[in-house]
């Protein structure tokens, strides 16, 4: 399941589905709205492009780390403190591949997928600055 959606997802169901006959490890990454003195967080995506880029990242991770399955669910819309933002579930034969594959996916998402966060505070809001510079048009990892 590779999706950009407003709804939350059943992580337990994803874990069950990720277990194949040859699975030896499943790694779950759950990115959560942190309470940085905010009321809510608003997420926006360039959905068509972001979806394709998530699919490409999943494909690359599968090839590079011999993953048996990859799920990526990135939520958009308004989220309260404590809610899930991003869920990544990877399945692999061994823990090294599962951990490395999961790490590859989250770093690739942060580096280049067109999604933005705005922290909504009592006094207004502030866009979370991206940490990567993209002026050359190429993705930095």
């Amino acid at each position, binding site marked *: 399941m590779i999706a950009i959606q407003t709804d939350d997802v059943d992580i337990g169901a994803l874990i069950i589905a990720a277990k194949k006959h040859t699975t030896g490890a499943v790694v779950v990454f759950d*990115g959560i709205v942190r309470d940085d003195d905010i009321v809510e967080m608003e*997420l*926006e*995506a*360039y959905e*068509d*492009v*972001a979806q*394709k880029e998530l699919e490409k990242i999943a494909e690359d991770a599968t090839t590079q780390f011999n993953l048996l399955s990859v799920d990526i669910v*990135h939520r958009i819309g308004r989220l309260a403190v404590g809610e899930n*933002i*991003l869920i990544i579930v990877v399945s692999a034969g061994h823990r090294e591949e599962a951990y490395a594959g999961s790490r590859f996916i*989250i770093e690739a*998402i*942060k*580096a*280049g*997928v*067109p*999604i*933005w*966060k*705005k922290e909504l505070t009592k006094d207004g809001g502030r*866009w*979370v*600055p*991206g*940490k*990567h*510079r*993209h*002026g*050359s*048009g*190429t*993705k930095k990892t």
Partner: protein
Amino acid sequence: MNVRIRFFAQFGELFGSEIIHESVPGTTLTSLIKGIAAKNSEGYDAIFDKNGAFLDFVILMKNGRRIDNADAGKTRIADGDEIAVFPPVAGG
């Protein structure tokens, strides 16, 4: 010819999330965005430097593909193109 321009995050707040712009054949990506931004001084300063070049962190896309800022001046726009302009991404 008509071109769809999409702005995201703070750029969307400055220009609106989507503009359908009537443009003449041969228009470059740079002149297209500069023409739109010229009507909004705060927005212009968010995208262009004092010399009229795209600020380094600004990301450009044409039909879902990234365009190097250095190539925007020679990238021609065609009827039906979708252009996206946005700041560095911050998902995850």
